[in-house]
């Protein structure tokens, strides 16, 4: 049985650019799928297709049990969309924005107003509720946008880079709201270019690049695929490096790596925390004083680099906002990534060679 969000073989081209190049997705009810990829990977295009905003050239999509291409209006009743840009009317107050959306979902005037009050409270916007949204901070606007997407408590939610451009405190707040939502049973498809975000929020992750899903699995599975865990020890005195290396190689599953200037020795292992305790005991017996010891798992950054040959933030392509306008892809548009243009194109060359 297909999940709450299901897609098969989605293809969408804009001119020469294949924004989606055969994407399959399956999100079981009540879970979170993280669509992870750099700018221009096709994340936004996928969301636009699944939320009925864009017709794919090929493929099928079913959301909340309804065919997206055949019955888009029915799909729209069951979904909430919160985009990259806080899509609120800045001249309307927070309350007016939410009431308007409620009315457009065919709620009665009274019900829409009551719901607006409820949502303002839930998103800590009650005090600002009667001010025009243009006076809001970036974080407040995002919260209002998310509230607008939740007016009818849709069973399926789509969030396109919900925290892009937010400061750490606001990002943290929004994560908590999202976690609360998912705890309530909402199915969520989340796109992000922040690996940390996918790691924290998503049950399953699809890594996308150039319109294709290049890897999928849980965060742990993806990390394991990249090379699994390793133990890192920093010894207090340089003369203990030799002994420590010997001990670690005894426990490890491969060649150790020594960084003399930082007095750090690393070895790949399997066995997790239990092994760590044994290593500490053994080092203690041998009289090695340690400054730091830890079990390191690869980050999703490592995963991305090993899968694509380039770091997530340093990918080529322009901002996804160009996606819908035809001829998007390389060049033009504001570069939303952190990397300077030069590095981006360098990464692109590396990848094709």
């Amino acid at each position, binding site marked *: 049985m297909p999940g709450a969000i299901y897609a098969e073989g989605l293809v969408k081209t804009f001119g020469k650019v294949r924004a989606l190049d055969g994407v399959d997705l399956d999100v079981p009810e009540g879970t979170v799928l993280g669509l992870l990829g750099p700018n221009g990977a096709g994340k936004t295009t996928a969301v636009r297709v699944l939320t009925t905003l864009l017709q794919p050239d090929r493929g099928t999509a079913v959301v909340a049990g309804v065919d997206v291409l055949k019955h888009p209006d029915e799909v729209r009743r069951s979904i909430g969309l919160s*985009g990259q840009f806080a*899509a609120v009317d800045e001249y309307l107050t927070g309350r007016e924005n939410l009431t308007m959306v409620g009315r*457009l979902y065919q709620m009665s005037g009274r019900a829409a107003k009551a719901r607006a009050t409820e949502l303002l409270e839930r998103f800590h916007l009650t005090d600002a509720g009667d001010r025009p949204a243009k006076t809001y901070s970036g974080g407040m606007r995002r919260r209002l946008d998310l509230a607008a997407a939740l007016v009818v408590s849709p069973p399926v939610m789509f969030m396109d880079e919900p925290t892009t451009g937010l400061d750490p405190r606001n990002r943290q707040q929004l994560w908590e709201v999202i976690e609360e939502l998912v705890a309530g049973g909402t199915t969520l498809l989340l796109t992000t270019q922040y690996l940390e975000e996918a790691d924290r929020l998503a049950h399953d992750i699809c890594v996308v690049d150039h319109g294709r899903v290049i890897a999928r699995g849980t965060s742990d599975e993806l990390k394991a695929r990249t090379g699994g865990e390793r133990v890192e020890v920093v010894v207090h005195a340089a003369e203990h490096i030799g002994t420590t290396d010997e001990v670690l190689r005894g426990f490890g599953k491969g060649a150790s790596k020594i960084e003399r200037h930082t007095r750090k020795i690393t070895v790949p292992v399997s066995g997790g925390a239990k092994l760590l305790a044994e290593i500490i005991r053994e080092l203690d017996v041998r009289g090695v004083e340690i400054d730091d010891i830890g079990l390191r798992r690869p980050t999703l950054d490592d995963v991305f680099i090993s899968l694509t040959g380039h770091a997530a933030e340093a990918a080529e392509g322009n901002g996804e906002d160009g996606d819908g306008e035809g001829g998007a892809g390389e060049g033009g548009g504001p570069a939303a990534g952190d990397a300077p243009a030069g590095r981006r194109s360098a990464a692109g060359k590396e990848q094709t060679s």
Partner: protein
Amino acid sequence: MSSATDSLILARRNLIRMKRIPEVVLFGLIQPIMFVVLFTYVFGGSIQVGGSVSQQTYREFLMAGIFAQTVTFATAGAGAGIADDMHKGLVDRFRSLPMARGAVLTGRTLADLVQTALTTVVLALVALLIGWRTHTNIGSVLAGFALLLLLGYAFSWIGALIGLSVRTPEAATSGGLIWLFPLTFISNAFVDSNKLPTVFRHIAEWNPFSTTVQAARELFGNLPPGFKTPDAWPMQHPVIASVLWSALILVFFRTLAVRKYRKAAG
């Protein structure tokens, strides 16, 4: 019915916006008043309409033209508003809601119609102050204004289509204005079209804009004494021609705009 309700919800939204950005409404008022003053006092003495060079005759002749120009210049506003909604991602939000497809555009054009009507009332008061008079009954005068507003409403759908077709609100504003200049000047709005060079005279006589101007002039009783009505059919039957032209423009551009909206990519 949901289509009408959705349109009204969005019209209300746009009216709230206008209330909160009063400078837009204000500039919309200043411009036609400026035109009235400029045309009446700068050109007024040297433009001959019908057989008369009297200032008062030209003043009365001119007003229907200024009214028509005012209602059509409002198209730029509709375009800019819709382009702005696209630009800010609001159109995406609306398109992801289970609402009537054309409601975003209908809501905007209806709100613009309200604004245009208000502008027209203020402009009429200013015109009365500087000596504009009608010479028919109140029913005819109201019918004249109804035709003008219908023309304005039809034109706002051209603005809507332009707004959906460009990438920025700035482009929608200038794109929404450029074509209005030849349209309103190659017409009978400010001069007697009988005195135009032949090619321009034919264009002016069939121009939908001229048709409504002629109809309003007739309904206001503002045709100059001794004015020779051109032989072209729309000039001979301006009221019916004006309704037909406006209806045609409305249906044609509304269809195109709604179709474009469905496919709109924000």
